């Protein structure tokens, strides 16, 4: 399957701090990719660069035009309506005084979606929020707010969706409903990248794992491959990740550490 997103040698510096260094990978349509790593690993920075919220200091992010593979020219993000990356930040970016439907309609118009009312109806249906469409967002639970937040990222039907810790503030029931929704989107062909501290969640839903530490990509493969490489006999991904990072701790801070083990 052809890649819909290519990240090539992306780096990000904040003054003297190197937040990301030489990150490269590709994502294909319908893939559910988890980005895991300790605090300060660069997960949010990487996802916001992919979403186009921040510009990289080095490298480039390239998206496939609709109906084609990844191009080799300049980045096309933001230049084509079809080529946008949907973005769902960790804190829901919603207007609390507007209703669910009004939030969706506003962003459908701002995204210049061809048929905004149809897009709103579709997202209400897919998120299961049709009954609460006219309710102000301020009155929604954290889980429902996060669903609207994700729906805003998907309103323009982007080929790639980037989510920053989407389940961080949700209870188990809300998490379950959110993942059902995201898995269904991936099954429909949307490439979904998400960051999380909940490694079991990544193990359960992601088909691919990106392990970041110290701004470097240490591992790129399936959860099973990760367990085989660094896991113990219990098959627990969280234990495996802790062990993996501990073993590489001295080297993780050094430039280029672990990059050789990355797939892309």
């Amino acid at each position: 399957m052809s890649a819909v997103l290519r990240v090539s040698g992306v780096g990000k510096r904040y003054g003297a701090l190197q937040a990301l260094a030489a990150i490269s990978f590709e994502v294909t349509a319908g893939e559910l990719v988890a980005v895991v790593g300790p605090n300060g690993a660069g997960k949010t920075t990487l996802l916001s660069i992919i979403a186009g919220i921040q510009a990289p200091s080095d490298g480039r992010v390239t998206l496939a035009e609709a109906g084609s593979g990844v191009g080799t020219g300049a980045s096309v993000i933001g230049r084509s309506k079809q080529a946008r990356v949907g973005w769902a930040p960790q804190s829901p970016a919603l207007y609390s005084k507007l209703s669910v439907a009004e939030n969706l309609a506003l962003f459908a118009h701002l995204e210049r979606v061809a048929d905004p009312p149809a897009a709103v109806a579709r997202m209400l249906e897919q998120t299961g929020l049709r009954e609460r469409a006219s309710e102000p967002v301020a009155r929604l639970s954290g889980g429902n707010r996060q669903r609207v937040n994700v729906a805003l990222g998907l309103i323009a039907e982007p080929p790639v969706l980037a989510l920053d810790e989407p389940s961080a503030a949700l209870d188990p029931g809300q998490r379950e409903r959110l993942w059902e929704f995201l898995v269904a989107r991936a099954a429909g062909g949307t490439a979904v990248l998400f960051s999380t501290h909940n490694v079991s969640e990544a193990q359960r839903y992601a088909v691919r794992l990106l392990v970041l530490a110290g701004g470097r990509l240490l591992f790129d493969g399936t959860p099973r491959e990760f367990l085989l490489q660094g896991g113990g006999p219990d098959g627990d991904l969280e234990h495996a990740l802790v062990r993996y990072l501990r073993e590489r701790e001295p080297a993780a801070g050094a430039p280029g550490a672990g990059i050789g083990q990355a797939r892309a």
Partner: protein
Amino acid sequence: MSWLLRKDLLILRRSRLLLLLLVVYPVVIALLIGFALSRAPSRPRVAIVDQSAPGETIAVGGQRVPVSQYTQQLFSQVQAVPVATREQAIADVKSGDVLAAVVIPPDIAARLASDVQQSQLEVLYNGDALEQSLVRSTLDSALAHANLAFSEQIQKAAGNVLGTLLSGGSLGTIGAPENLIGLTRIPSTLGGIVARQPHGHDRKELERIDAFASFAAQNLSVARHVLTTISQPIRVNSTLLHGRRTPLNTFAVVVAATLSLMLVCVLLAAGGIALEREEHALSRLIGTRAALISREGLIAEKTLLAAGCAFVLAFAMLAAIGAFVTLDWGRVGLWIAALAFGAAAFAALGVAVGVLAREVRAASLLAFLLSLPLAFLALVPAGSVSGGFYAVINAVSFVFPFKACLQALDNAVNDASPALGLSLLHLAALTAVFGALARIGLRNVE
């Protein structure tokens, strides 16, 4: 941009407290100013304790001027509240029932008649420094008017005496000689008598008296003018060099409208842009490459929203105050231009403040802390502070929109200087500068 504008108007409509404040605030300010200007007492309320004896007079030549004429003059300058005792007057001042009290002493006539001692009044007042200053200046003015009017009464009596001395007749006072000949008639009467006298010592003496009478008549006729000159040595004739004379009440209207325009504009613009950040929507709207709206577009939208709302409210306020104060509706086109340019400059300042503050409460606080002192500084009149400090105030006022907007609106409403075009140009430049500052502030949104 239109969808974002619709969204903001919808949020504004649903923020009932804010909406109420935006509507009620200018209406209340307009009514307060209107009532204050139209119902303000023209004369201060002053308690007067008159301890002088009833019917007491002072003698001017052969005539008598009643002391009560002074108290009448004073009563005409203030809203007089007669009280019996000094203690009662003190109590009234302390309670705030009257602004001040004036005690007319029992020996006022004796002192006026003595030609040695000046008469003295006692003035009692209360309040803080500002109130004291206001009462003193108001009362000093009232007392000066009363003094002047009383001195005119005395001058008139003296003039009557001089007239009788010159032209003859009766002084009209009991005990004064009747049918006086008058100095001007002495030379002609005496001339006939002198002509009939033989040459000798007596004739020479009569000729000396005749010469003195002629000289005295000529000089006393000048004395009347001298009396007028002494009572009011210098008359003031003032000329305004530029523009039209601005009545204080219409200038107060302009100040009130500019203040309201500033507060509504700056608060709404600062809060509007800060709300985008607080709702975490800013990155979604203007993310580096996936921007749904350009940064310039966002700044323009927030400026338009705040300026539009504030313009409508300020115009409504001017119209409402127009019910109390006469405003020239023939200049309404100029009002609109001044309000529109002022609103744009204030809104651009508000957006810059909102970008800097990052969250709504901090933005509101910063907007207040920045706007009010700057408005206060712009109202400091020249000459009330040192030259150097006034230059600093002028420089600070120049880089913020309040003074320029005040001048533009004052010109639009009152035809005051400087020219409207200059102020509008100044406001347009400030709009561009604050817009550019807001744009720089929005460089990084992550």
